């Protein structure tokens, strides 16, 4: 059977913990990974806070789901984009974000970090170039 591969873009614009959006988005990404589609994640506005390093929720009685982002490379997610201006206006740089490694089990191809900081024009292009956009 020939499978139709679509380009899926998950657009994340909410901070973690304050609302359920970030967690729900992650759940959908993980579920969607089972369908062998081309999956890209994009973090814009407060969504960039989802990827901050060193999250420790022991004091607030909520599950810390940030380690899950680091496993996305194992779920067929090949590209993760973060909007540069969103980071900068929040006093953040790429050094504040987790690194997400990726490895192709078949070819053995590896990437140390698939998190890429991109400009607004790239965000536009990503949206235009995707078949489906899931917005959270």
């Amino acid at each position: 059977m020939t499978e139709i591969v679509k380009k899926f873009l998950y657009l994340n614009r909410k901070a973690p913990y304050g609302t359920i959006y970030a967690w729900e988005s992650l759940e959908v990404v993980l579920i969607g990974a089972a369908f062998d589609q081309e999956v890209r994640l994009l973090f814009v506005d407060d969504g960039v806070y989802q990827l901050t390093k060193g999250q420790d929720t022991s004091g607030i009685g909520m599950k810390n789901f940030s380690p899950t982002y680091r496993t996305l490379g194992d779920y067929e997610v090949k590209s993760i984009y973060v909007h540069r201006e969103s980071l900068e206006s929040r006093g953040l740089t790429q050094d504040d974000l987790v690194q997400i490694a990726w490895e192709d089990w078949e070819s053995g191809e590896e990437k140390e970090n698939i998190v890429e900081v991109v400009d607004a024009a790239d965000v536009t292009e990503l949206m235009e170039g995707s078949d489906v956009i899931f917005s959270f």
Partner: protein
Amino acid sequence: MSILHTVNKSPFERNALESCLRFAAKGASVLLFEDGVYAVVKGTSAEGQVKAALEDLDVYVLGPDLKARGFSEGRVIEGIKIVDYAGFVDLAAENDKVQAWL
């Protein structure tokens, strides 16, 4: 009559902090918690607003919410006091009223 103002929304998503700072009386206390804590981080586009507020108001941030979001105490704008849950309770008890900017 002293008021404790609480803000739990990100300053980049809602105008809760902006309204709070506009209407809080001189000498009032403002506690930032949940997504409101993003306002206390140094180097953000909200820093000027927060620093200006420090001249007239006592600003507090809930430490556990800051830690949950990956920010250490060193990232917090000088002059903002970090409190724990017991400190939150003390603030609520010390003030006559609590105004929550939802």
